């Protein structure tokens, strides 16, 4: 089974798991198996059956958009990676702390 690395922002939906092994012969199958096992992830990765445009999936260091997308074949030894879009910062950090 190939492994998928889950970035920090999405670990809230995988019970904290950072690396998950999934079955599947293509990237699409592997991701479908992933969201079936962790249904809360689905909305973050897919819009219906389409991969959301801000979700970047890499096999090792290569973007699947420049391979065959979700149809890209994968081997059991492959490491998939979801690259999150992160903005950083502390803009909203205070409100929870300063509640009275």
């Amino acid at each position: 089974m190939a492994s998928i690395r889950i970035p920090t922002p999405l670990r809230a939906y995988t019970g904290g798991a950072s690396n998950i092994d999934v079955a599947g012969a293509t990237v699409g199958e592997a991701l479908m198996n992933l969201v079936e096992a962790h249904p809360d992830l689905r909305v973050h990765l897919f819009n219906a059956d389409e991969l959301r445009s801000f979700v970047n999936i890499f096999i090792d260091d290569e973007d699947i958009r420049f391979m065959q997308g979700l149809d890209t074949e994968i081997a059991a030894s492959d490491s998939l990676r979801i690259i999150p879009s992160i903005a950083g910062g502390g803009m909203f950090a205070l409100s929870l702390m300063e509640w009275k």
Partner: protein
Amino acid sequence: MMTSLHNRMADLNNEEVIRYSRHVIMPEVGIEGQRRLKASNVLLIGTGGLGSPLALYLAAAGIGRIGLVDYDVVDFTNLQRQVIHGVSTVGLSKLDSAAQRMLDLNPDIAVVKYNEPLTSENAEGIFSQGWDIVIDGTDNFPTRYLVNDACVKLGIPNVYGSIFRFEGQLSVFYAESGPCYRCMFPEPPPPGLVPSCAEGGVLGILPGTIGTMQATEAIKLLLGIGEPMIGRMLLYDALEMSFQTIKVRKDPDCPVCSIDKADLVLIDYEQFCGMPAHDHSEFSAVDDARELEINSVSVHDVRAALENGRDVLVVDVRDPHEWDISAINGTLRIPKPDIQLAKNGIQAGRKLWEETILKGMPKDKTLYVHCRSGKRSADSIAMLSEIGYSLDKMFNVEGGILAWADEIDPEMPKY
């Protein structure tokens, strides 16, 4: 290997040769490289977590002219990660606080201060004031897209760094010889899918790690040494202490860097991202609060409610730095941007927001909502009315805390 971004040199005096001796003795820098750094111009967007190490190290390295864009004031809670500031500068503008420290470290440099939020209106004007490199140290999606697009339009390299909790990203987006931010992230996640820092937080050291790497990339670009992070992104995980580099390819159909620069127009990035870029923003996902019938109460009603312990929650939706200036005791404090986030999140199907941001504000309570003068509180009521709060139970406090200062507590500072 690439060549330097510019061929200007500035003379070094004897004291500067001594100051930079650890640079100068390296053949990769030498006197020539140091003179080149002195003739360089680097613009930092943000003087927060990423901006702190950037400003310190670039000042120390002898970059001749460093620009800072920020509108914020130093807050006590910044000091966990924004190490350029200090207890002695809490309450000061971040620009003055940062400039003071940079010039203490190196009085031979010039610091240019832009005390305003970066917007689509001012970005081109600011970016065209001779900057060789722009460094993105911002904390939100709208400004990141703005910085990228303005850099592409003006042909300036954008040294990108971003952080979240224990993870960081680093790249150099330079459309002249590689991909831009939009090639990798064509559009932002919808607001409801963006974690706020209330959900996220950040390890205080993380911006130090990423910011110093951004500074490294800037120096490399200016000296024309090494392999810049153009077309690559570094992914850093502090918990695993792992670094991985991935390829970032230029998208031939990129909506920004594949078109003629003259046709590239800076758009409304808050609209594009569906979220405010900064807490002075007028952006609201609510189209028009004025079309709603919003009930109001006076500050005297607020006092009566607080004194009589009536079943009323008084909610202050101003920003945290305003709470420090003046606040009414006994209020629940939730900044309007958080209410906006909660609304977007709930509308995107995330219950989490109700359990966090809106936790202290049950729907069956009567709410008196106030801000400084009454506009943001009306907007907040309009947003809350879209996510299950009844307009019958929400009241806008007329005149906000300014009216409270006028009519109830004359000793309260007004701003």
